[in-house]
């Protein structure tokens, strides 16, 4: 199924690419996919690549409505079919993504939606900042309270983690979260939620993971890990 519907992050939001097939077959798959990933997609701006598929204006109208019902925004429809482009334009949708966007997404093509894909963020995420990625997330900087990271894989923070982090957001129970100072307002791994206990003493690097569906954080002891 996932081969028919692929989602990846681009500069202007998310790009949803559809595989081969008829619209009647792809539409329910697309909607099902959006529903499954609802918590992940939350409020996202979507661009849809329908390939050579010809979409009538009525289909387009129905789709924009169904997408906005899910709290998402469809802003662009990319297609090789002039008919689709015309019906997209009649709904005020863009039919081309910005140039640099295409180049950026082309770079990530190889591991399009795989979890092996990681992003590196080299700045501090302040309150109100939000980062969602299907793969792993590595941050060099702090995550301040009020900022959030949702990742399909692991989250590594080289800095102080004080915001909200959800690792393994698509149900990956092997996901871990580590930080030099692990004191998030809330920590989620797959389906489990934990709060930070009151700290005693100096902050130390810690790693949190799931043990029997409970989130456990352990200090990163260099000597012990080596043995």
């Amino acid at each position, binding site marked *: 199924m996932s081969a028919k519907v692929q989602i990846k992050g681009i500069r202007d939001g998310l790009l949803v690419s559809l595989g081969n097939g008829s619209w009647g077959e792809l539409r329910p798959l697309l909607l099902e996919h959006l529903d499954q990933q609802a918590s992940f997609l939350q409020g996202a701006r979507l661009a849809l690549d329908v390939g050579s598929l010809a979409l009538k204006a009525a289909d387009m109208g129905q789709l924009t409505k169904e997408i906005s019902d899910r709290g998402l925004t469809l802003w662009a429809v990319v297609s090789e079919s002039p008919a689709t482009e015309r019906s997209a334009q009649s709904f005020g949708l863009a039919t081309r993504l910005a140039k640099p966007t295409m180049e950026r997404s082309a770079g990530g093509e190889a591991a399009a939606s795989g979890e092996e894909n990681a992003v590196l963020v080299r700045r*501090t995420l*302040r*309150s*109100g900042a939000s980062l969602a990625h299907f793969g792993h997330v590595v941050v060099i900087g*702090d995550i*301040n*309270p009020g900022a959030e990271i949702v990742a399909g894989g692991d989250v590594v923070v080289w800095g102080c983690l004080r915001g909200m982090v959800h690792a393994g957001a698509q149900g990956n129970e092997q996901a871990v979260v580590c930080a030099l100072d692990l004191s998030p307002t809330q920590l989620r791994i797959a389906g489990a939620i934990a709060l930070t206990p009151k700290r005693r003493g100096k902050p130390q690097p810690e790693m949190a993971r799931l043990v029997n569906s409970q989130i456990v954080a352990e200090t990163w002891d260099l000597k012990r890990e080596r043995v």
Partner: protein
Amino acid sequence: MSGKVITVTSGKGGVGKTTATANLGAALADFGAKVACIDGDIGLRNLDVVMGLENRIVYDLVDVVEGRCRLRQAMIRDKRLPELYLIPAAQTRDKSAVSPSDMVRLCDELRPECDWILIDSPAGIERGFRNAIAPADIVVVVTNPEVSAVRDADRIIGLVEAEEKGPARLVINRIKPEMMRRGDMLAVDDILELLAVQLVGMVPDDESVLTSTNRGTPVVLDGKSKAGTAFRNIARRLKGEEVPFMNLEEDGGFLSRLTRFIRPGGS
């Protein structure tokens, strides 16, 4: 002469943006510069009240933007400082009466005649904030030593960075040194560790600020007030001078120094 635009903002309301704008404006004008203060809080104006110029308003910011008067006509000269001007906000309109590009145009018109243009931003992160931030060269974020104010300051600093308005500068207002020493108030170091921006001033909580605000005379003109001195120092730092941070601990004389000496670790 090309003036610099300083926007004073905070996110949270009631932390002292308007007081800071009025006092920094007065301090810079007192140092001999020509200063224009713009009230960006359309619909809830009060910079005019704090500066004591409320009864002189004829034209306001929206009149200028909508072309009902010339810019000069809306500039109210201060009672005491001849080089200090106020452009008041309209009270009967709302934030949508002005757009960010209007503000940029207005400030570009002011730049050749003024050394400093100070904009008092409204609370919040919506239109009014966008208007105030659009023409800024320097953004000063005011916060209090309270968790909620610091959280909002963090958000604002992020938005300022996203607008590429350079690193924001921080003023911590209403510090109670006594409470900070006891550990009952968020410490300056903790605030700086979280926000990671340049500190340009610490202003102690001072009753003279309230009385002078009510009277409409900036506290910087009161030589005895600690808060007034703090605002003066901020103005000098914004001008590019190196000014050491003053000691906020009130010197309660020999006895308090002695008790502190007797109780080590109490700091």
